[in-house]
């Protein structure tokens, strides 16, 4: 579930407030948005994918907090990792992976 909004990375664009399908965040005028309803988080990772500043972290554990700090996340390279994998990071392209998948399929085959 949603773990944190990075104090230092957040640019206060409130994109996460806008896109969260389960309305987990609240906008705070002049400040970073807050996680107001963590228990409603469905762990879909889409706020992370949409965050232009890679300031959010959603852990895979859906029912409990991971306890990971900002430093832990930095060390493990977890800020923005999912956005990058979707091809949504700066300089990325969602179809680059499709070309590589095609090459790999020809090499090792694919069941679907």
């Amino acid at each position, binding site marked *: 579930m949603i773990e944190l909004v990075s104090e230092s990375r957040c640019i206060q664009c409130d994109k996460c*407030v*806008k*896109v*969260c*399908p*389960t*309305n987990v965040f609240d*906008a705070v005028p002049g400040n970073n948005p807050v996680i107001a*309803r963590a228990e*409603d988080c*469905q*762990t*879909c*990772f*889409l706020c992370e*994918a*949409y965050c232009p500043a890679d300031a959010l972290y*959603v*852990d*895979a*554990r*859906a*029912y*409990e907090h*991971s306890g990971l700090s900002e430093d832990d996340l930095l060390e*493990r390279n*977890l800020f923005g*990792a*999912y956005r990058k*994998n*979707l*091809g*949504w990071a700066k300089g990325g392209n*969602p*179809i680059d*992976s*499709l070309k*590589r*998948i*095609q090459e*790999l*399929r020809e*090499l*090792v085959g*694919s*069941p*679907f």
Partner: protein
Amino acid sequence: MSRLNSAGLVLEADVLVVGGGPAAAWAAIAAQERGATVVVADKGYLGTSGAYAASTSGHKVLPPISLLRDPVKFERYALGGYLAQHKWWDRLLEITYDRAPRIWEWGGYEIPAFDRSGSYRGLQGSETMRILRKVLLQRGIKILDQSPALELLVDEEGTVAGARGLQRQTDTSWTVRAGSTVLANGGVAWLSKALGCNTNTGDGALMAVEVGGELSGMEFSAHYSPAPKHSSVTKSAYYLYASYYDKEGNKIEGLNRNGHRSTSAIAKELLKGPVFVQLDKGTEKPETREMLRLMQPNFFAAFDKTGIDPFEQKWEITLLLEGTVRGTGGIRIADDECGTTVRGLYAAGDAASRELNCGGFTGGAGPNMTWAIGSGNIAGRAAADFARSLGRSSSRRNVRGAGSVGLEAVRPTEQTWDAASIVRGVQDEVFPYDKNIFRSEKTLLESLAKLEEFWKTIQGTPLQDTAQHFIRSREVAGLVATARWSYYAGLQRTETRGMHKRLDFPQTDPSQRHYLAVGGLDKLWTRPVPVAEEVVEVPEEKAKLQLA
């Protein structure tokens, strides 16, 4: 109800689309192309809402060659209990072939070449939905995000005339007066946190029944997918590479059948004790691992974030209920145009029953997406035509809100009822494998008795102090109602067919090859509806093709 009666945003449109996933987006596009003005209202955000944006579903885009299309039609025909209809498949595949490639074009991508199977790989769901949102906005379609529809509006003749709800971030009401309404707001997964499914709380089914509509296929709502325990990631395709282990590390055999995971076999094992998985069958080559990673980034998110290497390590699994989202049930489609039994009301995507192309089996990994694109386009177009047929007078109709339970105190109580405990109570009836996967008259009756109590409780005064509580109270009504319809239909279908497994009726009964319409609020009812197509023989060559 005061919140909805208050002066808020009031809009008029030819067509109102309720929902925010691919079926809703396609319905909006199709209605507008047919000349209608369109408003879309979604609980979440059109772009992230619903199962598809988070979890992605591949879909085949097949040229009109029967050698390519027939295997798709026959693949799950028997598994679905022969309830799918080939004439529907033909239409849906044709629409998908025509429409799905537009997404690439709209996204500014070159349409990829077909591969040997005659199909091409789709984009991720998040990217597809980003593109569809952009297209809606470019075309001037008004989108109300974070605006759950809470009740339908009906005119004096009972024709649906729009809907109203709440903009949950500003706590203001919205009303859309419309000539016709498309419900494309998803199925129900009872807040299981299956990937992307928590916006799907059965809202559409409840709203449809409240205006006299009916559902179908609700007995086919027992779909579960494996996920790493404590996670939300119900991506199940890669379990074909899985070995299964008990907690001592001994291999458990027989949990995959014909190359696919067997939900019931896994469930039986989980009822005995913990089950662990490692993707260690045929994944030795680094190129295979790289390919799998690139194909499903969301599957690997679960592991990357918790520091597990799923190819090298074992992890514990659970089965999460996906209900009618990857099961089948929903609002009954009553004609060829995705119309319902109620005038002015259309249904598309998971909100509608998907029996027409999936029968009683899951449409995960392809058929569901074909249904979303196909039914969205059919419903949007038909809704536009219906709105036009009403003419200008449609916006001058006298209308009333048709919502009741969870929105108002049907039988006022001093204390408000506790939404969280009702949710847990419903989940205690629908989550357990020994109640929902393995059904019997005894377990169904026991669950129905408990659900009946919840239904009575929620007739009382709902908690409405904040916008969030106002909406949650209404969602709870959808959760209780859909659980009742699912188990009531399950009780009436006295056979095993598709994903509906009755321990007390383990065989398929040929005389029950029909759909089961279900409806009613306080008093539930079912009615058999014949399948408008004889059983089609699976030709031998085609049977071979599907195995190849």
